[in-house]
């Protein structure tokens, strides 16, 4: 009984480990690669940072055998193989390999030996290059140099911060006021208005993009911070109002009533009592909205404009980089990681609130 139990537990943990590896290795690969040199990334996989056996030249070369032809097997040191096989390298036993470099007549034979290696050659050059907007000189393997323009992700990072912080706080403020109004005030149309909020929870935001873009063009809000804050606020409000209403309407009635009896106004009760008491709910939604805005691509693409490079946020710059430099993995990996640092830090720092918010949340449109 005990043995089967232990075996079952081993199976559970084994499967769990495999899943966890599947989920984390892609991100790990990106992180490792972002610190590897450009030429290393092109030549060897990031997993070669782990100790592995590799064929390394011993420096010893041999003369070519006489009278060889392309079609017949060639024998070297008693081992026969075709020319094409020799070019790929042939195992000679004794942990050595011989490889034919150069062509049939004028090549040479190099002796390789298998050794344990780990490519631990790391650099922060990739980050320097993507972060700054300066020109950057690269050394190519053949000795020439290439000058490239840096990608100025610092600018995009600042834009992301400037877009995200107000686009997180403004909807929370508006939603908290509204939630309090719905929960503790009596006014005509209260019920139907809240039903509209609930109905808007799942409306896909695509529905709004065409008309709102027209308004923005007319009001000259396109490409402005105010425009994008308001857009994120508008699209985040249904969920924010709904979540905060659920929380604020559940606050103990006695506390608020005693404040009203003391003559406090709604505004005072809201600022002095309700906001401080609602901090857990506010924090939960804040994390949601923060991650949502920071990671958003579509809304910024439309309202910040593709043409205006100065206003682009990180996601837009990275998506553009994928298009322009799809094979420059040393830059793409570093750039992607720059965009992930903040949300991952927020996530690990405030995971508890985040999970609590998820539980309270329903479906967002």
């Amino acid at each position, binding site marked *: 009984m005990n043995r089967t139990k232990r075996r079952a537990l081993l199976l559970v943990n084994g499967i769990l480990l495999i899943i966890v590896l599947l989920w984390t290795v892609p991100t790990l690969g990106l992180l490792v690669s972002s610190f590897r040199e450009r030429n290393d990334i092109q030549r060897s996989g990031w997993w070669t940072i782990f100790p592995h056996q590799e064929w390394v030249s011993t420096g010893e070369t041999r003369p070519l055998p006489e009278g060889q032809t392309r079609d017949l097997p060639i024998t070297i040191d008693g081992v026969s193989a075709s020319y094409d096989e020799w070019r790929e390298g042939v195992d000679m036993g004794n942990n050595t390999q011989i490889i034919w470099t150069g062509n049939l007549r004028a090549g040479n034979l190099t002796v390789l030996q298998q050794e344990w290696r780990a490519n631990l050659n790391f650099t922060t050059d990739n980050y320097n290059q993507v972060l700054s907007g300066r020109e950057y000189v690269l050394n190519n393997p053949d000795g020439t140099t290439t000058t490239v323009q840096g990608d100025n992700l610092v600018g995009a990072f600042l834009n992301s911060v400037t877009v995200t912080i107000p686009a997180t706080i403004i909807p929370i403020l508006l939603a908290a006021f*509204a939630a309090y109004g719905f929960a503790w005030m009596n006014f005509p149309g209260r019920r139907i208005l809240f039903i509209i909020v609930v109905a808007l929870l799942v409306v896909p935001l695509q529905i709004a993009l065409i008309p709102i873009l027209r308004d923005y063009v007319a009001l000259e809000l396109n490409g402005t911070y105010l425009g994008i804050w308001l857009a994120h606020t508008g699209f985040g409000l249904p969920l924010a109002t709904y979540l905060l209403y659920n929380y604020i309407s559940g606050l103990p009635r006695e506390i608020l009533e005693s404040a009203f009896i003391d003559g406090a106004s709604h505004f005072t009760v809201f600022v002095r009592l309700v906001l401080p008491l609602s901090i857990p709910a506010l924090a939960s939604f804040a994390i949601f909205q923060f991650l949502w805005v920071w990671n958003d691509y579509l809304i910024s693409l439309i309202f910040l404009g593709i043409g205006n490079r100065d206003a682009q946020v990180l996601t837009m710059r990275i998506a553009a980089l994928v298009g322009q430099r799809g094979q420059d993995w040393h830059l793409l990996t570093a750039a992607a990681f720059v965009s992930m640092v903040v949300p991952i830090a927020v996530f690990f720092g405030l995971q508890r609130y985040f999970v609590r918010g998820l539980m309270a949340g329903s479906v967002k449109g």
Partner: protein
Amino acid sequence: MENIKTRSDNTFSPFDLAIASVLVLVVFAFLYGGFIFLRDSGANQVIIAFFAIFWGVGGVAALFYVGNMFIEKMPHQWSARMQPVLFVGPALALLAWYLAVPTVRTLYLSFFDNNSQNFVGLKNYEAVFTERIMIEAFTNNIMWMVVGTTLTVGFALMIAILADRSKFERVAKSLIFLPMAISMVGAGVIWKFVYDFNPDIGMVNAVVANSGNEPQAWLSLVQPWNNLFLILVMVWLQTGYAMVLISAAIKGIPDELLEAARVDGANEVTIFTRIIIPNIAGTLLTVITTVIIFTLKIFDVVMVMTGGQFGTEVIGVRFYREMFTNGNAGYGAAIAIVLLIAVIPVMVYNLREFNKRRAF
């Protein structure tokens, strides 16, 4: 409390009201000045960032503050009537501008041509449902919906149940949950790297080449399976969310219930199908609808990884292309309306649940 007095000696004074209205105007002037400064200034970007955050957040708070001051200085009867407007009004105004009214405006636009000049009736809808590329997009979205949702919920269920029995529950769940913090654009880069054609770069092709097979261009040439490889990216992103909800629901099942079943000789499979699943049905429904809506609107992943080429077109990308690349407002609007219609069942369900739950 120091503000006990504010209300009790609130007798109406026109002078106070005038001062409050001046304050409201001052705040508006300050906000407008800030807007012009942000739009036209060439100042250092760090300064701009600080100023913008201060202006935006401070401005909204100041508006509420002076707005309330203004209302409290009104004659009492008016003041009581205007208070809800101050609290609920701003949120409702934005909801109306950004979501409620655009629904009607988009519906209207969907009956007009490219420039919204000429009425074309149902022609846009006809094109949406007959064009080859749209059929491809619909087919792919259905694939996303069915395969993506099944895999996400399947993995989430499996992980939740396994983790529940493991010592490493917290670490494992935390790591699987982590992709939730990563943007879809970032995830697109991560997985493009994994799928890269060069076996010295892409992990998948490294495994393939190591086992003696030819590397494949997974995202472009391996059709129609390339859609599946894109869907896996979404599964990777969303499983954490589904897992957290499902795991909490499973923990909510009373232990006595499970113990009783075990004493009666039920095996783990029976416990899973007869006790766990029925007990978490509500949560499963929430998770499934959320993931379905997510797949319906999928945009970033496809846009970054294939741009909708190689047979991977989806509705979200079509909408963007028609609206922006092709400047085809009517057609784009029709696509948006189709998306809206697709979520109406969920909307109706939400409203029903809301009505059932409480006398508001």
